[in-house]
């Protein structure tokens, strides 16, 4: 099992890599499209701004490479900003096109009674599905488990059926999505202690 963790200068990857390795995967950090060749799975982590991230991905030719790989059916996990980049656009960086693999946009928390960034531990409510395979990442997980969030924007997918987990922070937003070979999680599994590690393990074991 070889996992490519994409490094585009946005946030640290040590914890993600270490977690993957602890579950027996070979996890390589790569900043080049070539690094995706031969990988069984791709993880796109990331913190920071949407526009800057897209700019970096395009500059090193990774935007196109990621799209191709996903089209070919590779198992893909976007974490935090890495999940948001899958969508068409974000309120954070107007005029910047996202990867556009999923339909929808990224919005900012508007309610001024809440503190932004949404920072800390919050729960995920698992959307029940009769299709077992849609909840594979949440296998062996309790509903309302705490995970660690750190973000000011959240995704609004056009197709609501891809939402597999939601979180309440003034608004009920999509904190976990799954569509075919594509997974996205808004929280940080690598910072969510046992629960987060379980999710990464589930992804690695797919």
């Amino acid at each position, binding site marked *: 099992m070889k996992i490519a963790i994409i490094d585009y200068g946005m*946030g*640290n990857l040590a914890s993600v890599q270490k977690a993957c390795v602890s579950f027996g995967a070979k996890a390589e950090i790569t900043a080049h499209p070539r690094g995706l060749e031969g990988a069984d799975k791709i993880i796109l982590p990331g913190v920071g701004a949407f526009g800057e991230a897209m700019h970096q991905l395009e500059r090193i030719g990774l935007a196109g490479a990621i799209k191709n790989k996903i089209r070919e059916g590779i198992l893909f996990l976007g974490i935090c900003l890495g999940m948001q980049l899958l969508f068409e656009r974000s309120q954070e960086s107007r005029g910047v096109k996202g990867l556009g693999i999923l339909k929808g946009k990224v919005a900012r928390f508007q309610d001024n009674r809440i*503190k932004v960034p949404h920072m800390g531990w919050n729960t995920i409510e698992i959307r029940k599905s009769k299709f077992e395979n849609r909840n594979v990442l949440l296998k062996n997980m309790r509903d309302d488990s705490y995970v660690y969030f750190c973000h000011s924007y959240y995704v609004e997918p056009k197709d609501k059926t891809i939402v597999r987990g939601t979180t309440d922070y003034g608004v009920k937003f999509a904190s976990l999505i799954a569509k075919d070979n594509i997974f996205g999680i808004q929280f940080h599994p690598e910072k969510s202690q046992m629960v987060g590690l379980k999710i990464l393990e589930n992804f690695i074991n797919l």
Partner: protein
Amino acid sequence: MLAKRIIPCLDVKAGRVVKGIKFKKLRDAGDPVETARFYDNEGADELVFLDITASFEQRKILLEVVRKTAENIYIPFTVGGGVRGIDDIRKLLNAGADKVSINTAAVKSPELIRQASQRFGSQCIVVAIDAKLVHSPQSVVHRKLPTTGYRLPTKKWEVYINGGHTPTGLDAVKWAKKAARLGAGEILLTSMDCDGTKNGYDLELTRAITKMVNIPVIASGGAGKLAHFYRVFREADASAALAASLFHYKELSIKEVKRYLKSKRIEVRI
């Protein structure tokens, strides 16, 4: 619902955990990575490392500590102390810190907050504020209440830098607002009056700031009893409460604090 966070703070000097009582006397409390792992298992929601004497040589040791910590624990941690500019922030983030806290450098050059938050994202830029009550009579600002016309004395706190040694003349509440406006993702607020006293967090100071900024505030300084945690969340609206010696010397455990808070209906991660 978003849980209130309990954060142990590890003061680090030359790669070892120490705790300064009132910023002065230091006692050794162990190896940072071991301590971090211990708190991770105990249920800490986050960790803060404060490098209290950041000389150039010790900086390398700190980066090594950060690297080892990132490899060993799976909860977020913040690193601060002696951060001078963008380059220091980048190094710490690259070594594996989730957030970097800036204090003196931010006061000296507020633009650093803007630059850093644009470059790395607001979520990883914490502005640490050490504040102390101003006692001189002129400092008490009288504000007219719009409804009654009565004048209400309002307390004022001054920002200190260089590890609490240098007063700046800055008003802590105004500074917090400015930091938030410049892009800080969080404020780590230490009351110098309460720090080390174990008489409770500075509720007035904390409330004054949580009311004025729309970013999370970590209250620090003064925790000594279970009730102190409850009050800072319920009465001062802190997003997180930080403590050091209390946890290091096992006067209270994080588990105890969380169980207590839960029994008082404060949302915590257990």
